[in-house]
């Protein structure tokens, strides 16, 4: 019975809403009249809740962010949970998100593990070793420049490497692969690196020494630290640094739940819809942390705006403002002369259809009470 009524409302109400009513209705016995009344009321409420045509949603959103934004404390760093991971939060982070900065100032990943591993503390160390980036300088006992023979000498710390679970051969190979123009010779576990060409002299040796120290021997590029944490009865890993692509490749990682706060990385690896979701999640996190209350729909709206073009565009003069159709509207927000001159070069026409232009020329803005207009054109008066 209830399904019959529900069918009538298909297309008139959102499907999840109908499903929810259906589910609830099945638990209580309803008469047909009651069922119809419920749906009628629901439709009325739904229609009432919809935004009216001519509502200035953009400005309402801007104000909904702007006002609480003034109350945001400038205290930017915060310890995220138990682990000592510093995360930029507050206004600086919000600006970072909406400006669509390529790299967050504190990249952070939350890595989930697949079923048997997410409770197994023994295998944890191995997984972490796979993820955490280790560079040569962390496994060195000594490194020096031999001024007479003009080469760099270094000794690897085998004990430390064993602790970290790095096979010696792979470490040696990593260095060799990274430095193609260098000859590396081993003698009594003492390595000497000599540049193939003698050009550059001493300064080149210094840079070589620094380059050797920075070679990655194990783990994933960009992940500086990994800290395990218990959450909801399972082990999760917090990683400072972000590399979604390579982390997902690790066998034990449940990449369906693993997240990063680097929006561009999400967009690149998981697509624009995922990036949109990430923007919403990251912005909500900041707002919640500050104890503010901004309706999620405002955040969703901004996120939609930023991702609508298929790539992430910031709320900046090179981002979504560039997309505006009107020359005057673009010129009214930063670098006006550039916009005006470029527009004049291609002979752009401003149809004066939006708000800013109409404020500038002092005409009623096409919003709210200024929106309605006659569709039928008056017959032209005959010229006298």
């Amino acid at each position, binding site marked *: 019975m209830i399904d019959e009524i529900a069918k009538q409302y298909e297309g008139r109400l959102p499907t999840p809403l109908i499903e929810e009513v259906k589910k609830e209705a099945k638990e209580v016995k309803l008469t047909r009249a009651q069922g119809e009344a419920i749906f009628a009321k629901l439709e009325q409420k739904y229609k009432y809740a919809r935004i009216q045509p001519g509502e200035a949603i953009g400005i309402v959103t801007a104000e909904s962010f702007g006002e609480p934004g003034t109350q945001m404390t400038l205290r930017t760093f915060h310890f995220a949970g138990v682990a000592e991971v510093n995360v930029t939060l507050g206004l600086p982070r919000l600006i970072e998100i909406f400006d669509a900065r390529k790299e967050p100032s504190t990249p952070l990943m939350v890595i989930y593990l697949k079923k048997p591993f997410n409770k197994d503390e023994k295998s944890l160390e191995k997984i972490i070793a796979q993820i955490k980036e280790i560079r040569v300088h962390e496994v060195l006992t000594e490194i020096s420049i031999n001024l007479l023979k003009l080469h760099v000498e270094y000794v690897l710390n085998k004990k430390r490497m064993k602790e970290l679970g790095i096979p010696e051969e792979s470490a040696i190979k990593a260095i060799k692969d990274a430095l193609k123009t260098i000859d590396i010779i081993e003698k009594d576990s003492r390595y000497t690196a000599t540049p193939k060409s003698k050009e550059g002299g001493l300064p080149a040796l210094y840079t070589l020494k620094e380059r050797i120290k920075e070679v990655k021997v194990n783990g994933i590029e960009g992940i500086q630290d990994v800290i395990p944490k218990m959450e909801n009865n399972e082990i999760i890993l917090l990683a400072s640094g972000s590399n979604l692509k390579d982390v997902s490749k690790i066998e034990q990682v449940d990449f369906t739940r693993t997240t990063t706060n680097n929006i561009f990385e999400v967009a690149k690896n998981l697509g624009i819809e995922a990036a949109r979701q990430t923007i919403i999640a990251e912005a909500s996190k900041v707002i919640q942390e500050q104890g503010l209350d901004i309706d999620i729909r405002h955040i969703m709206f901004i996120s939609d705006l930023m991702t609508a073009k298929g790539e992430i565009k910031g709320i900046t003069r090179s981002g979504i403002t560039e997309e505006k159709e009107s020359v005057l509207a673009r010129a009214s927000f930063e670098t006006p002369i550039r916009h005006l*001159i470029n527009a004049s070069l291609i002979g752009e026409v401003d149809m004066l259809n939006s708000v800013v232009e109409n404020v500038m020329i002092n005409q009623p*803005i096409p919003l709210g009470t200024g929106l309605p207009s006659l569709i039928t054109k008056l017959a032209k008066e005959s010229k006298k």
Partner: protein
Amino acid sequence: MSDVYLDEKYVGTIEHPKEFLKSFIEERRKQKIHATVNVSYESEFDEVSIHTATGRVRRPLIIVENGKALLTEEHLKKLSSSDMRWQDLIEQGIIEYLDANEEENTLVALTERDLTKEHTHMEIDAITILGLITSLVPYANFGQSSRLNRGSKTQKQALGLYASNYLLRMDTDISLLQYPQRPIVKTFMHDISKYDKHPCGQNVTIALLSYDGYNMQDALIVNEGSVQRGFARSFYFRPYNADELRYQGGLIDEIGVPDKEVKAYRSEEDYKFLEDDGIVFPEAKVKEDDVLIGKTSPPRFLGEMEEFSIAANTRRESSIAVKHGEHGIVDMVILTENDEGNKLIQIRLRDQRIPEPGDKFASRYGQKGVIGRIVPQADMPFTASGIVPDIIFSPHSIPSRMTISHLIEVIGGKVGALSGRLIDGTTFSAESEKDLRKELLKSGFRENGTERMYNGITGEEFKANIYVGNMYYLKLKHMVANKMHARASGKIQLLTRQPIEGRSAGGGLRLGEMEKDCLVAHGASLLLKERFDSDKTILHICETCGMVAIFDWLKKRATCPKCGANAEVNSIEMSYAFKLLLDELKSLIIYPKINLKNKY
């Protein structure tokens, strides 16, 4: 090995920095090294630095040895009997001055109770952690620190006796409280700074009560009877001056009643207060635009003189008149000369300011508010004993700000007023609140400071007991009379045709970018247009070339200078600022063509 720096200059190294420091300080305490020299050790950089330069902020502390302060009761006795001086304490190594660097190596106890073996110094008194003005706040240890900051900030804005020679002074924008009083609840610092010689407020009876919503959001209700009795009356002084300037060619300004033939002559009415010498007489009651000093200047360009034979004709009026929106009584007239030896006339205007709705007041705890209403004494609530408060203060101002000291002062003030003595409210060493309450009870009042009160309008008894007492209130220098401003129409700027800025010029109130957004968000499209109509103009646009055409008022028709008389020209309404933008675009060699289309 640690480096040693003398006044930031490297002088050498030392083996044991800590021991060096110890012996250095010992020698200083023995007066072998001058007392103004400070030494410190920074373990982070392994550096010893010695400072002897001037300009370091230093403060005195009592030296502590083995958990005991070197300053004893004996010393205090000697000090009070003048057998010992401050200088002696320093010379005997009981008190020493530390600078910010040396302080880093010490552990200072706030009070004698806190002393342990580790402590090296002790504060002379706990109050020394506060500044001069902050220590004028009684019971400050019962309040939040941020409120203390605000409290000391408002004290600086209070009206009082700002200088004892005020009668002879010519200060700009200064006020004087007419009947200042010393506070009943005072601190140690009030005595030291001789606060009773230059008090800044008045003791008032205050009730914590709501009154018809006129005291919501920090507003105050003031008893009209108190105002009539002289509560918070002040004088506002403003100087005006005029020089008799000398110009090239022996020309000179002339002070005197301007001739009627003079250029830009005001009306005769405006000069009515001038005496024969062209200067107002003292005690003249002047309004805005009344001339205080009559003055004429020679013509701006000498060429003007040749056109007209009579020189007086071309002199300009340059009198000094009372500023827009101000009035007062001429308080003092000074005739003197300025640095260049020119005649200088200075006039001081005095205006009595009686409290009115909008004047700002504050207690000493950052509880500031504005008068919301002045109520006739008959309508004020009264206590069972017939006491009518001077001020009604909203109780909602207390909980979120946690200014407990505000509440304690009410009790303290009440006890002081009843017993006829001054209450010591010095931070950390005040008369205890408990004792005050006991004394209040002895005086025949309720211990908690509340009293039965009656509604002044209906005569009904209030259901709750009302907290009533006495407080020291400050009138702050922000008065509505100096700030109130409104305008319907008036002067506009020449360039943009938009209203000019500023209260003193009679300018408009700007509806800014964010205010505009509010109207947009409400969809109030036509209201927004109307609000921005201040610079609207009619522009004539040539339909052919899309540029601004010229309207010929003689022929009563518009022509386009480029397309000729036959071009079709239509007029549209737009903001003048946009016309300016079009002009500016033209100067950038951009051709802003306007295409007209019928809107309907």
